[in-house]
């Protein structure tokens, strides 16, 4: 594999927030690689560190947050060593983010047209007039109709889904190398969602843009992603292709996740959520992070963190069950011979 095709390499990333109540360990040793033109999907429980991972790459963590260990390399250069000015240039022109919550990035006191134009002027070398045209063009591409009227409106005058699309337009307008999309389509209906995903894939083909897609939407993951990371408690618990994850889940958390989806055949039943309370990041369990909620937990899960085991081609999972199965099958084979 060609090393120079790698855009982003995250290694053993640890990010914590130092709050009045103690150290919140949001990300605990995350490793992944992203190649140009590829799409990496991240799924995982609410609070598992998906957004914090994205913010760590961009270095836009809240004041109390800090990368405490590990590296984030962009084309081989460690971003964690870059100064504020270098990072400023990186954000926007090299790497754009679509925030989970549109109102975090839209300013309520400026019209959306003004904000779009400012972003385009800041990150590209377009003139004012070109920026204006580009803003309208981008709004049309993301399915906002009557863009000429909409640019004069303020964020609170748009519907939730429109705000989300404005933000997508803003991120894509600068044609970044890497696009981080944090739940980009949560507020969108399926038709518009399809239109937006198509637009992203088009840009990906045209410019070799790489995408990190954080989402809990199975359909989006399945149709877009080359590789999927499943996160739990700030770590990757399973990684592989969409088919591997959905048809052969190998971590108990992933299995539980797949059981809780509403389907056409369980309309009149209660859904099956994963039992127990979510992990407390102030007090991480010693062994497997999922252990306190796992029906299959064994003694070893309590005390030792499982390593990543290969369970198939391009499919790895950190769950002791796989080791047990491996032993069991070896024993069976051994006895049989």
């Amino acid at each position: 594999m060609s090393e120079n095709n790698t855009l982003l390499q995250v290694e053993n990333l640890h990010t914590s927030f130092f709050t009045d109540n103690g150290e919140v360990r949001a990300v605990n040793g995350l490793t992944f690689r992203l190649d140009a033109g590829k799409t990496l999907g991240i799924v995982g429980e609410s609070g598992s560190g998906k957004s914090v991972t994205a913010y760590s790459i961009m270095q836009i963590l809240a004041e109390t947050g800090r990368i405490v260990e590990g590296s984030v390399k962009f084309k081989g250069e460690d971003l964690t060593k870059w100064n504020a000015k270098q990072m400023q240039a990186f954000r926007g022109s090299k790497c754009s983010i679509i925030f989970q919550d549109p109102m975090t990035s839209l300013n309520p006191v400026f019209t959306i047209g003004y904000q779009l134009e400012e972003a385009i002027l800041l990150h590209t070398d377009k003139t004012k007039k070109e920026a204006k045209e580009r803003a309208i063009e981008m709004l049309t591409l993301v399915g906002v109709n009557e863009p000429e009227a909409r640019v004069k409106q303020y964020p609170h005058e748009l519907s939730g889904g429109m705000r989300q699309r404005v933000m997508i337009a803003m991120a894509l307008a600068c044609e970044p190398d890497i696009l981080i999309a944090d739940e980009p389509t949560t507020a969108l209906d399926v038709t518009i969602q399809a239109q937006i995903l198509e637009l992203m894939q088009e840009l990906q083909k045209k410019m070799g843009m790489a995408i990190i897609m954080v989402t809990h939407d199975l359909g989006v993951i399945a149709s877009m992603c080359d590789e999927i990371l499943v996160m739990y408690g700030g770590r990757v618990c399973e990684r592989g292709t969409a088919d591997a994850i959905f048809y052969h889940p190998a971590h108990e958390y992933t299995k539980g996740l797949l059981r809780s989806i509403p389907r056409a055949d369980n309309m009149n039943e209660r859904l099956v959520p994963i039992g127990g309370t979510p992990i407390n990041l102030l007090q991480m369990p010693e062994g497997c992070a999922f252990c306190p909620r796992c029906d299959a937990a064994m003694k070893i899960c309590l005390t030792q963190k499982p390593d990543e085991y290969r369970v198939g081609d391009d499919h790895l999972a950190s769950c002791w069950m796989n080791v047990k199965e491996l032993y069991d099958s070896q024993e069976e084979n051994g006895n049989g011979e």
Partner: protein
Amino acid sequence: MANEAKTTSEYLLEVEHLKQYFPVRQGFHTVMLKAVDDVSFAIRPGETLGLVGESGCGKTTVGRSLLRLYQPTAGRITFDGKVLLDTGEQYDENGRPVLDASGKPVKGPAIEPDMFPFRRQMQMVFQDPYSSLNPRMTVEDIIGEPLDVHKLYSSKAERRDKILELMELVGLNAEHAMRYAHEFSGGQRQRIGIARALAVNPKFIVCDEAVSALDVSIQAQVVNMFEELQDKLGVAYLFIAHDLLVVHHISDRIAVMYLGKVVEIADADELNGSPIHPYTLSLLSAVPIPDPETARHSKRIVLEGDVPSPLNMPSGCPFRTRCRYATEQCAAEMPPLSDRGDGHMVACWNK
């Protein structure tokens, strides 16, 4: 007072001819954006009405204006037998405005009681958790605020117990209580908003995309919680969401909106099994099945024609610019909602 007189009705909430227009500047003049245009529906006690439709069709605006977070342009809203709002327009049995000899609408007296007593009974979980929670407040105070406002506890300890109970209900850890709203993930914030809405034991909750930022497992937990509360306390919901599988799962009946108007209302299974309105048909054909194989091969349905805008509404039926069945009548007049049997209401001339 007229609005104090309780009328008996099988419904907890009745919305009639609700209109919500916003002025928008376009060039040198101001035009009216008709976000909600003549919407009527009713919800029984302990019932869930799902509300679905394209982004921007007016779902959030319906929720906000029926709680009078906006000043509705026109309409009549009755809650628990009391009038919440009546702007005075009169309608005949076909739903057309009653006009006097000179062609002006006949108006009765307008009624607009103080909302404070109703606030406790009617709550909303907001679509945008970030802007609806004060980032500088601790979770304990965010959830406790409505308890304070309505004085719903007798001691500090009781207040705290209530808050912790609510947090557990939505799957938040007790140690989260002292943390600030900005320290939470998107899905955690959404659950703080839900706990806050539940704090005052309301009879009715507008859930605006209340589970859309949650991963499927926590979504399942919260959906179950909504259903359990309904079984136990008889809470009614207006459940707004774009995920049709979740809406189908939780709703007793579903209303479909298109460009500010309700085009179809029916029992949830009935609507999914035998939809009638051309827009509902295309909406349902696009439900993504949570399976990679199917997702890869499913084709996106493309509705023909220009997507109209609420700034520039087509005459007659709002869907006619994209409808395969459109005829001259569709351009001339808006079809009324008519009953096609068992309360399956459809607004369409040709289907």
